[in-house]
């Protein structure tokens, strides 16, 4: 919901006072043992009062470094090498420690990524908030407390007075972020720097927090510098945006201009590799950016993007482009910015792209390879009272998975989507055998897989392998790439000993990794490369089914597209069936044939991918779809926000588990009484599409679609 324009566009906004923050040609360098590394060079931009300026870029592009440079918190060996940082007309670079200290928390405030860590675990929330007022304004404790409670109400924190007395670990991640934001705004700062504030939060919680930020900006007229790698969030929250790559600002302009017509090849590349929810499956093809981000030590002399650019010419290689202002006010750091037209872009040849099967074409006759019926997984919980200890206390369980029923067809991909704590990882752990299922049946290739690994024979284990989420911990740091990929072959004996090396090299090439990767150690690989080795290791024993536990959510957007295409290639070539877990609906849309949506252990909706993204859909799916930030400011997205927190799985709500937060309950007689009492029936819509809800099918069909194109004015 971009800036709601007055019904009559004001074409001449009145001249405003100077910008709150003005950064000119700033360069930041870190002293290293021998010499120094220039992390960020000649970055300049301006933020006016009440304006939200987005700084976008992949990891390692220096966007956080700029933020830390402003508050001069660059650690022991970092320093602002050149340029000026003017805040409210005064240059911060020369400021003494004491002067800066007075500004921090009073006129400049900061919120950063991980709310869990940002609050002192051994101090009451109230005390941490009051501090800002008592220290800066010398306010009395009572007034400060009153002011804090007012601010907590302002950020829609339920039961604010009580929260003041509690400790950080007693409230949820979303609430912690609200406390941090409230604390930052207590002194009505002129500038609020936010470094990835919602990345660690779930989609629905993130949407609520983003709304809050937009609202507060308007009320307090605070200038916001919003740092993120997620283009969707920028489109939703920011007016202007600066795209950074490898320590330099490559493109700068208003959000509409940048998204409608990106001029710098890197920005164009970014736009192409970000999954867009709006588009249907065929048109939402993802094109990765080939190559890797150059390390700070050896950056190319000419344009830093030239090794990965599709339009590189000799001028790009020799001469460093300056940030040029284009006619429409956008400024770009590229010699040929004007002449490049993103529309006629054709993918370079070495980017072998998977052919998107028609999706629901041959869906019918592929017989299911893995079927699950009423699968349950409960974890016993040890009570803390003395009686529990002696075993006589009441038996309490975390009901992680509640009768999951679905089947995966051969050669197809099932996407499982849900927020944290919905039981999707537990389900995968039960299928692969790391955990034993409590009840229900699960069939794989005709064998029963309800028991854990010890109950399965070697052949069955070989047919079911897994790809993991975190690239850092997916590989054993003490063994080389070749050894780790070869291990499954030796273990299952699928390849005679002497041919293992060649077989591994063949796999590496299939993963588009050269033969020289064979002897490399994990610490010498980038995130994307480690994930490719993880996939190669899973495919080493040529399994029938590969379970992917959020394989791309820890990767940069450009690398994400490459891994997804790789997985599709593998599926096309060897027909491996895949179960793909993700919390990001747009990625799942592009990748899977069927999608299951889970909430607190229960499958709410399951069906072919296209059916899920259009009505009729389950109210929870609708809420998820409306919360996903979409990287296209021109579309109109329905605004549905879920109240309250996810209930605990130890004592889940009775009947339909979503009834405590369901926005569509009022459609049912006396406000969804039935939802609380009975488990909802499965509503069959055909072609495998089922919805687990009391609301009759006809009403579900009347919901209007989430995404509509904003009418061009």
């Amino acid at each position, binding site marked *: 919901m971009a800036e709601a324009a007055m019904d009559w566009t004001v074409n001449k906004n009145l001249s405003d006072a100077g910008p709150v923050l003005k950064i000119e040609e700033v360069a930041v360098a870190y002293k290293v043992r021998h010499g120094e590394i220039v992390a960020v060079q000649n970055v300049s931009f301006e933020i006016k009062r009440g304006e939200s300026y987005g700084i976008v870029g*992949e990891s390692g592009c220096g966007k956080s470094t700029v933020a830390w440079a402003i508050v001069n918190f660059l650690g022991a060996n970092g320093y602002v090498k050149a340029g000026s940082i003017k805040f409210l007309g005064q240059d911060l670079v020369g400021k003494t420690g004491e002067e800066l200290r007075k500004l921090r928390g009073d006129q400049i405030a900061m919120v950063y990524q991980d709310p869990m860590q940002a609050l002192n675990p051994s101090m009451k929330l109230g005390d941490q908030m009051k501090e800002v007022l008592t220290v800066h304004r010398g306010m009395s404790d009572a007034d400060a407390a009153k002011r804090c409670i007012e601010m907590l109400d302002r950020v829609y924190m339920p039961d604010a007075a009580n929260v003041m007395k509690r400790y950080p670990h007693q409230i949820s991640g979303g609430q912690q972020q609200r406390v941090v934001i409230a604390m930052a705004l207590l002194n009505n700062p002129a500038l609020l720097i936010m470094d990835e504030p919602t990345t660690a939060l779930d989609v629905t919680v993130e949407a609520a927090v983003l709304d809050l930020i937009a609202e507060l900006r308007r009320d307090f007229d605070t200038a916001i510098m919003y740092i993120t790698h997620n283009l969707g969030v920028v489109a939703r929250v920011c007016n202007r945006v600066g795209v950074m790559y490898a320590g330099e600002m490559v493109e700068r302009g208003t959000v509409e201009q940048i998204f409608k017509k990106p001029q710098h090849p890197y920005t164009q590349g970014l736009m192409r590799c970000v999954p867009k929810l709006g588009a249907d499956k065929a048109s939402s093809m993802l094109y990765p950016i080939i190559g890797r981000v150059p390390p700070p030590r050896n950056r190319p002399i000419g344009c830093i993007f030239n090794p990965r650019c599709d339009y590189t010419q000799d001028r790009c290689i020799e001469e460093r482009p300056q940030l040029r202002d284009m006619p429409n006010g956008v400024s770009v750091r590229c010699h040929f910015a004007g002449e490049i037209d993103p529309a006629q872009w054709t993918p370079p040849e070495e980017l072998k792209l998977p052919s998107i099967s028609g999706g629901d074409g041959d869906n019918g006759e592929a017989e299911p390879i893995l079927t699950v019926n009423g699968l349950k997984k409960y974890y016993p919980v040890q009570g803390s009272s003395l009686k529990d200890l002696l075993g006589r206390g009441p038996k309490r369980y975390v009901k992680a998975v509640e009768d999951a029923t679905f089947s995966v067809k051969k050669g197809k991909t099932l996407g499982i989507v849900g927020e944290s704590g919905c039981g999707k990882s537990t389900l995968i752990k039960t299928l692969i055998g790391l955990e034993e299922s409590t009840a229900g049946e699960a069939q794989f290739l005709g064998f029963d897989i309800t028991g854990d690994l010890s109950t399965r024979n070697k052949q069955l284990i070989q047919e079911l392998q897994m790809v*993991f989420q975190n*690239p850092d911990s997916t*590989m*054993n740091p003490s063994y080389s790439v070749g050894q780790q990929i070869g291990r499954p072959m030796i273990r299952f004996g699928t390849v005679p000993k002497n041919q293992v090396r060649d077989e591994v090299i063949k796999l590496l090439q299939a993963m588009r990794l050269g033969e020289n990767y064979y*002897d490399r150690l994990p610490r010498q690989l*980038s*995130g994307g490369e480690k994930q490719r080795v993880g996939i190669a290791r899973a495919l080493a024993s040529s399994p029938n089914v590969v379970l992917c536990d959020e394989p791309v959510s820890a990767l940069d957007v450009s690398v994400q597209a490459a891994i997804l295409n790789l997985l599709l290639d593998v599926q096309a070539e060897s027909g491996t069936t895949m179960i793909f877990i993700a919390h990001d609906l747009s990625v799942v849309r592009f990748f899977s044939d069927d999608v299951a949506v889970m909430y607190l252990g229960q499958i709410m909706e399951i069906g072919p991918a296209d059916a899920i993204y259009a009505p009729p859909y389950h109210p929870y799916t609708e809420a998820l779809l409306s919360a996903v930030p979409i990287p296209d400011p021109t579309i109109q997205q329905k605004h549905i926000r879920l109240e309250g927190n996810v209930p605990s799985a130890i004592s889940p709500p009775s009947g339909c588990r979503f009834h405590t937060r369901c926005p569509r309950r009022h459609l049912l007689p006396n406000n969804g009484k039935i939802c609380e009492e009975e488990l909802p029936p499965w509503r069959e819509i055909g072609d495998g599409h089922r919805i687990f809800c009391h609301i009759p099918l006809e009403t579900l069909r009347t919901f209007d679609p989430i995404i509509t194109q904003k009418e061009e004015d």
Partner: protein
Amino acid sequence: MTVAQPTATVSSKPSRLKKAWEGISIVFESRVATVGLIIVLFWFALGIISLFWTPYPPNANLFEQNLPPNTTNWLGTDHLGRDITSRLMTGTQVVLLKTRLPGDLGIVIPGGVALWGVFGALVVGAFLGLNAAYRGGWWDQSIMQVLDALVAFPAIVLYLVIITAFEQGDVVVIFAITITGAPGVARLVRSLALDIKTRDYIRAAETRGEKVSYIMFKEIFPNARGPILVDAMLRVGYAIFMIGTLGFLGIGLPPPDPDWGSMVNEARKFIFLNPWGVIPPAVAIASLVVGLNLFADGLREELTRYQK
């Protein structure tokens, strides 16, 4: 945040030498580790020299008793008139260089009492720690309970009891060091293994149906080697500390071979006559232990920075 480390230059098969040099170079990165290494190497060198040459035969009482340091005996003589310098040099042998097996065969194996003792502690401790961490549940409870019992009890007393139980000898001291050292190592290995156990590559190994022993020793243990090595260094220091104390209490390594602890003990009685007699062995023990500690601390700092 996502991951994008810079790749080192493309190295062909890292040769054994290159890997070794990479290891050594870590040490020279930090001043503290280098100083520590120098002290340790100094004593090692002294020990090796003493195998072939000492100013005078260590056990021969050729001189006047309780002489302060003078030109002939650089560090003076002890209460029986033996040359302290040579006794000091041979003192390192028994701690760092050689162990005498029991029985009158007089077989000598390389590696000092302290080193074998700590090695024993490592083997026992690692085995217990790994099993306690990976198997968890009942195993973890029982092992940790036994270890807590041993740790709850002052180590020196355990030493006393073990050593008085069996008659004096190198192997007994080694056994004592192992028993008192094992709980500490087990606790360290357990905490490391508990952290490594949560990593995805262990899940990957489990999904391959690898045997428990393979996972423990092939997947978990190699990643715990760094901190274990550093801790072992500290334990050698502590073992020397312990041997000295036992020697001082008169129940350490059997005579006649000179052992620093007993030298301090004997010299103590004559402290009024010749205060200089006490200082050399005392300084020797202290400096060797400090050297090992410095080396270990420097190594630990480098390892953590290296991994970051």
